[in-house]
């Protein structure tokens, strides 16, 4: 069984479009994250949710909006896509809520977004 899954794996779209990436974890974790990996492979956190509540919100354009319908899902919606949004987006989840212990994070396989 896949622990952290993302759909789609590849996403190719035109500038200006709106798109969503879905993430689901079946590990029973409380906290979920979105990371962006740019063309130089640099990984940077974007958001973190705990039990559907936004915990970490880095300096990300407000065109990016995470949505957590329940604690097993954290979706990423992107409005008005730009060329610079092209990257690999990784979802992750952790066992413990920040503040209650070490959060070993488990990563999904990534979604490669290409904006033309």
């Amino acid at each position, binding site marked *: 069984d896949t622990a*952290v899954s993302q759909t789609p794996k590849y996403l190719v779209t035109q500038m200006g479009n709106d798109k969503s990436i879905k993430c689901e974890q079946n590990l029973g974790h409380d906290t979920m994250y979105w990371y962006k990996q740019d063309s130089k*492979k*640099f990984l940077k*956190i974007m958001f973190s949710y705990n039990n559907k509540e936004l*915990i970490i919100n880095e300096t990300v354009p407000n065109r990016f909006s995470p949505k957590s319908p329940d604690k097993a899902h954290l979706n990423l919606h992107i409005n008005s896509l730009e060329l610079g949004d092209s990257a690999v987006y990784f979802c992750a989840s952790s066992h413990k*809520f920040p503040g209650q212990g070490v959060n070993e*994070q488990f*990563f*999904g396989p990534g979604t490669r977004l290409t904006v033309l």
Partner: protein
Amino acid sequence: AQSVTQLDSQVPVFEEAPVELRCNYSSSVSVYLFWYVQYPNQGLQLLLKYLSGSTLVKGINGFEAEFNKSQTSFHLRKPSVHISDTAEYFCAVSPQRAGGTSYGKLTFGQGTILTVHP
């Protein structure tokens, strides 16, 4: 705030040779330390982590790392590499105790591409 520097962007080695991937960090608070591996077109997998206690930690696939607090380093080592170890390796830190939104946040280094040649 934390920052992580991986000193080598690429490390080529021959099969069965030893390897060391270097990682230095900067933080105003105590941190937990991690090494992740990313195989081509895959997500990240945890190799090992340092939380507390012995400064030498062992991970999966024969890797180990040593935490050196005075030098703020967490270098990854393997005594004999295999072709299958070819991948990109990421060092990361997470603050042990910090206010609200910082706790649990992983800060990654730039990655080191390890290429093992036959």
